[in-house]
């Protein structure tokens, strides 16, 4: 078991290195660097000016050296001013003016050029805000989808089953930007019950009025999928021999479902829920942009829109880490919950 976890962690680290290399390559493409230079100096700078800025800031050093600097295994060089004296690269991040080892391994994620602050200052609060959103989404999504799935799968082929199945197919056909618009029209424009923007959630705190729509919008897309998986799992369990035995020995239907079927039927949905995280990350971006909530997704979009290299790298690292660790947890949890499967 321990070797299995260690091997998985090794693969995870390798995956993260590969992915950050790809992201690093893509954000450092020539057009992107030029865009960054133009946003940092003057919009009407000459070709020569841009080139000298890129050289002075160290963007012209070899690719692998710069990647090493970002990781923290190569010394980060300070920028040079017009006369060639070493100065801090970005003054608003208090970057040192002498060569240091300062990368991700040392806990330094770099400097956000869009928000004019360190990446850590920007990223962690945003992650916290998204964590709150995710928490409420999970609180809504998991019980609702499990209940729908269990009720549908309990008695396969009945009218309840068919109604609930069509309902869950409908929700899987409703991406966040569709359900967001529909909910806003119904609950904000038409009924006026809820606020169509979560911008106040950041400044004045979360309330039912400003937070229900984003949570609802995000939860609805996942509900259908998890419910369908739960239904399939429940249907399979209900045809097992031990369920028939339990029925034949005279147990009531409700008691059979709760005591015998549920425990086995909920193993598969657990992994499905964990594997929903990559989807939720995309959902977070859409919902946060749509409802103007200052979280991780919002930060990611503004970083990508302005080619904010360090912030974008930090954000990708975080999201890839979330995806990979949920995969690991789902595998381990599955092995733990299902005694029939033991990891070799």
């Amino acid at each position, binding site marked *: 078991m321990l070797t299995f976890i260690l091997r998985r962690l090794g693969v995870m680290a390798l995956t993260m290195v590969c992915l950050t290399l790809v*992201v690093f390559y893509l954000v450092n493409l020539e057009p992107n660097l030029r865009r960054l230079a133009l946003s940092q100096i003057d919009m009407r700078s000459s070709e020569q000016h841009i080139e000298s800025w890129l050289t002075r800031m160290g963007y012209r050093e070899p690719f692998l050296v710069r990647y090493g600097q970002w990781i923290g295994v190569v010394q980060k060089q300070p920028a040079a001013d017009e006369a060639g004296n070493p100065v801090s690269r970005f003054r608003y991040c208090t970057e040192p003016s002498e060569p240091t080892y300062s990368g991700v391994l040392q806990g330094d994620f770099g400097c956000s050029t869009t928000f004019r602050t360190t990446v850590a200052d920007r990223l962690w609060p945003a992650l916290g805000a998204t964590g709150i959103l995710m928490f409420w989404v999970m609180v809504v999504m998991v019980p609702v989808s499990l209940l729908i799935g269990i009720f549908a799968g309990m008695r396969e082929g009945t009218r309840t089953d068919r109604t609930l199945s069509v309902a869950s*197919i409908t929700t899987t*056909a409703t991406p966040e930007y569709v359900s967001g618009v529909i909910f806003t029209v119904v609950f904000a424009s038409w009924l006026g019950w809820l606020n169509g923007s979560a911008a106040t959630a950041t400044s004045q705190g979360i309330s039912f009025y400003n937070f229900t729509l984003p949570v609802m919008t995000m939860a609805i897309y996942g509900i259908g999928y998890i419910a369908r998986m739960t239904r399939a799992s429940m249907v399979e369990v209900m045809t097992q021999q031990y369920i028939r035995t339990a029925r034949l020995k005279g147990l009531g239907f409700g008691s059979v479902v709760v005591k015998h079927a549920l425990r086995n039927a909920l193993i598969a949905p657990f992994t499905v829920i964990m594997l929903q995280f990559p989807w939720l990350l*995309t959902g977070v971006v859409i919902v946060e942009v749509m409802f103007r909530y200052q979280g991780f997704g919002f930060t990611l979009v503004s970083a990508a829109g302005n*080619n904010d290299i360090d912030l974008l790298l930090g*954000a990708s690292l975080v*999201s*890839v880490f979330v995806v990979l660790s949920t995969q690991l947890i789902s595998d381990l949890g599955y092995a733990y919950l299902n005694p029939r499967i033991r990891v070799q």
Partner: protein
Amino acid sequence: MQLEFVGWFQILLGTLWRFWPVWLALAVLFALSFAFKKRLGLYGQILDTGVGIAGVFICGFWLFSAIFAGTIAPFNPLGQYPIMKDALPGAIEPNSGQIFLFGGDTLARDVFSRMVFGSQIVMIIAPAATLFALMVGTTLGLPAGFFGGKIDTFLSFLANLVLAFPVILLFYLLVTPGIMETPIPYTMAGIFFIFPIIFFCTLFYTRYSHRPGLLAIQIGLTVLIGGWIYAGLVFNADPFGIVAIRPNELNIFVAVVFASSPGVFRIVRGLSMDIKTRDYVAAAQTRGESSWYIMLWEVLPNARGPLIVDVCLRIGYTTILLGTLGYFGLGLAPESPDWGTAIKDSSRLLRAYIHPALPPVVALMSFVLGLNLLADALREQSLKD
């Protein structure tokens, strides 16, 4: 000048009337389908269930809307009629006397016509991208599952790498205006679009290698047609000028194929691992068939059930991805009538006007729903066998 309006009932009638080519085509489709149901195999069987009929109906509706878009839409989707800015549904355009059935958007374009023309973009890109993803995923997934070992480890690692990327981040990195100045989209297109040619060449070669005459025709046709499309798509150098794709569309296309191939790969790999243990595979091995023959002519045909279901679901998912791209304004032209862009434009002004937002939203949702229903019916039928 005061605009004249027609009532809700007339809007409804007018909308139904504008779709007349679609109703006609659907009527013909269903009449033929029911007449020859017995002979249509799986497609005939799904018409036994209400879910299947609903799925075929919705998908057919949008397919025919895309085909007859020019006849259905009364206005040019990009045309602006200044007086109709933010006009409510049912407003009559004074010059032509035609009705803006679903009103005008904030740039004074006809929402109805844009919705109808938006279906064209979805109908072209989503199925095509799914088919390419299917080719890439199948060509790589079959050997990964069949041989296992190092090939499998390597290819699975690559697939997991792509799957670990949040889709939205992938799109932000791959579909930017800047990247079109670099050779990356063209390189990726060059790699992805070669897969169908490889696939079909191997397919024919493994089966007909002992009949050189037939094989030569098949390989020749594949290379000719494949190369023609390849030249048009990747190098934009189609000698006849028929197959052409704009750089931004190529970029979207490549990004969507890239994002969905690993999913197909995983499914095909799993199926291939499962099927290779069957007796008929062992029989073929005893006959001395080559590995690729077994993969393409024994394993693949027996994996078609789950694959067809997956393709249906995946076209829907690709539609959602296209909508996401439009919603974030990535890749597609800002005035493009596709549903995602329309949702983006209208959702910003939701507080003032809701009517431009609803048609694209309902269109996208209904099309994906239709595909999901179709997939559900297909799955149920293939489980029955």
